[in-house]
């Protein structure tokens, strides 16, 4: 299983992501700079968290319009798995690879804390190692994680089982509609999520609940 981490200027959780992929998958991912004109042949493309282009204009907006995203869109259409975490999720929605948008948190504040996530769909390429309804711990750290989609869109992603992670009862940190924390595209090979599973993969992190996501993807 080969993976690549794509880096835009201003991203800052790429090292955390590289470490997680390497520790759990056994081999280091390729690290691809946004200006590179080709992306190695991989089975998983990851866009990590951070503040691409300072999150200026709108979170993820500027990175979403880069030529690298055209390459990623193309791969996604061919069935390659794409994971966007935090800013990665924002970039994927801005690029139109995932429906909806991530707006400013309802509190208008950056929030970094541990939340409880409920697995809303364990039957995806990303969540196979979890079970439906399972509640896991996971940290969040973001300013714009308030998921919004128009009524029709929301209904269709709910009906299609595209909602994969929800903030469990009482722990929605940002005001997201339907407590949505992570969704896939209709085909199920692109996942975007606000929480940071890569920051909860070792006993020294205080828990390993994020591990199963990567373990499922990489093995």
């Amino acid at each position, binding site marked *: 299983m080969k993976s690549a981490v794509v880096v835009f200027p201003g991203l800052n959780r790429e090292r955390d992501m590289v470490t997680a992929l390497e520790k759990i998958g056994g081999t280091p991912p390729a690290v691809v700079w946004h200006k590179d004109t080709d992306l190695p042949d991989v089975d998983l493309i990851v866009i990590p968290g951070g503040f691409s282009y300072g999150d200026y204009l709108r979170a993820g907006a500027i990175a979403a*319009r880069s030529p690298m995203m055209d390459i990623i869109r193309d791969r996604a259409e061919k069935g390659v798995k794409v994971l966007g975490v935090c800013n990665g999720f924002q970039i994927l929605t801005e690029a139109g690879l995932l429906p909806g*948008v991530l707006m400013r948190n309802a509190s208008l504040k950056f929030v970094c804390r541990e939340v409880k996530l409920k697995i809303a769909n364990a039957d995806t390429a990303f969540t196979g190692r979890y079970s439906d309804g399972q509640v896991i711990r996971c940290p969040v750290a973001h300013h714009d994680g308030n998921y919004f989609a128009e009524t029709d869109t929301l209904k269709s992603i709910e009906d299609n089982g595209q909602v994969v992670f929800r903030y469990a009862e009482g722990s929605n940190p940002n005001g997201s509609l339907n407590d949505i924390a992570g969704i896939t595209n209709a085909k199920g090979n692109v996942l975007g999520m606000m929480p940071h599973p890569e920051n909860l993969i070792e006993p020294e992190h205080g828990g390993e609940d994020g591990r199963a996501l990567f373990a499922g993807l990489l093995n």
Partner: protein
Amino acid sequence: MKARVIVTLKNGVLDPQGKAIEGSLASLGFAGVDSVRQGKVFDVELSTADAVSAKKELESICEKLLANTVIENYAVEIIG
């Protein structure tokens, strides 16, 4: 040539910033405000002197970058 672009949220789209401002105004004692919606303004300088082409260019810029048309509307105004 100068132009101003205004990007606002579509009706029905939740506006956390506007809501927070409403709340804040109420607690600051400004009672007469019924609603606030926040948007963005971009003051742009263009090298062209042709208003028609400037407007067209800006509309295309809005579609491509300045607005997220899933949730936002935009309006372009040439100032001169």
